[in-house]
């Protein structure tokens, strides 16, 4: 399985005319790869992830999952894809942890037995709060874990995670990195695309970075390769150079 984004363009209407958010973005991610998507605030990361997840339609180009357009058969895409948004409040406050996740499990057509087994598994892996806890009583970090649980509930081969590490405590963050790289990537051979703006976090998660700035892909490659080529490598300045305004900034690989 592979995920191909090919010449994706996206713009939104604004009072000052169409605002270009994605400008000719292309990349490919294959099964078992864990890739970090980085960029400053407003660079187009979330727009790109939502376009892949079919929540937005591209104005140009296409997104292919295993050779088929994700937008032409959205029901197929939604079965194959798990998406964790950066919006932590996207659950029903009056329902419990169990009630919320069971609702989405049913929409993903998990049988009661499969749902029960899946819940037990996720409860341990993601350290979920007690099932009877109402969602409105959860802390920000607990809500973040629920977002992750919802994304992986139907065990999809593709995971799109938009800033999944926010609100997570350091201990769980380390656990999450292991989960993403070793369990989902290496062992389960999932395609994992993780957006973040924490550089140190990204270094620990993946060697392959996609860096976008002002809607353009400025870098797609191995950070360790850049490090080897530049003995004076410093991640902060590397990132700043990549995301500098377009005229003076470096081009993507």
């Amino acid at each position, binding site marked *: 399985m592979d995920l191909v984004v090919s010449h994706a363009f996206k713009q939104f209407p604004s009072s000052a005319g169409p605002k270009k958010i994605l400008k000719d973005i292309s990349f490919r991610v294959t099964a078992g790869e864990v890739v970090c998507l980085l960029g400053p605030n407003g660079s187009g990361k979330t727009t790109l992830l939502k376009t892949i997840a079919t929540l937005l339609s591209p104005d140009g180009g296409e997104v292919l999952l295993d050779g088929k357009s994700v937008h032409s058969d959205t029901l197929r895409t939604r079965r194959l894809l798990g998406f964790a948004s950066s919006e932590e*409040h*996207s659950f029903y406050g009056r329902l419990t942890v169990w*009630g919320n996740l069971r*609702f989405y499990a049913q929409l*993903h057509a998990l049988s009661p037995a499969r749902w029960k087994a899946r819940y037990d598994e996720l409860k341990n892996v993601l350290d979920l709060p007690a099932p009877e806890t109402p969602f409105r009583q959860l802390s920000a970090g607990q809500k973040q874990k629920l977002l992750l649980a919802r994304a992986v509930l139907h065990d999809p081969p593709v995971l799109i995670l938009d800033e999944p590490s926010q609100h997570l405590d350091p201990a769980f963050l380390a656990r999450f990195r292991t989960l993403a790289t070793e369990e989902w990537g290496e062992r389960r051979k999932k395609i994992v695309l993780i957006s973040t703006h924490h550089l140190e976090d990204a270094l620990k998660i993946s060697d392959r970075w996609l860096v976008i700035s002002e809607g353009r892909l400025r870098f797609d490659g191995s950070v360790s390769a850049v490090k080897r080529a530049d003995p004076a490598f410093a991640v902060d300045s590397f990132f700043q150079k990549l995301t500098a305004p377009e005229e003076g900034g470096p081009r993507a690989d």
Partner: protein
Amino acid sequence: MPTRILWAFFRRDFTIHTSYRLGFAIDLLGVFFSAATFYFVAKMVGPSAMPLLKNYGGDYFAFVLIGIAFSTYQNVGLNSFAQSLRQEQFINTLEPLLLTPVTLPQFLLGSSLWDFLYATAQVGFYLALGMVVFGLRLAEANVGPAGAVLVLTLIAFMGLGVLAAAFIMRFKRGNPVTWLVVTASELLGGVYFPVEILPGWLKSLSRFVPMTHALTGLRKCLLMGAGWGEVLPQLTALALFALAAWPLGLWGFSAALKRARADGSLGHY
């Protein structure tokens, strides 16, 4: 349509709704006070309304109780989809829902299922209260044709409700479909008074309001014991409304959804 998906929506909404116990109690009290109010209005009107109500059994309380009870379905049919959609946008759950492999009809029907069943319970409560407390008589009711009128009424209003939801998806606030249908129904639909008292031109217009046919059919069946043949005009009119409303509603909603995916306003409210 997989019942498991509809059941998931129903259980979600049942759990959420019943967690607001005071709201539940106030809804029931609302039914009681509404029925009581019109009971006394009917007493005031008394036998003077008899000639105008001769086609509906002659009792104003029975006439108006059926009008207000079954207009609940109009409200649910028109508002349920749009309100569910707006609520999902407001609490940021619309995007996660649209990321599940649920089809558009499943989403629309599922998210309004609880509202329809709750409205049915409210209508039942209206009628039970009317009979037990206020002396409503439905001894001659012909339940079969009444059920058919009700089902077609629901289908027609649900179609209009999907169209109303399309406006909410596109414009977030401002729903001309609901406004137009509710306003027209109040004036021309015969909820509170028989359409026979309207001037000729308004009476002609009332034929284009689904509520007119719904309430005429229901009153004929429930109060006069009318059979299938007697409500055939109403059944035909409601079927035509349903046939027109659903394709229009689904087309409108699909177009609004496509537009929201294009301009990024899916979760906006």
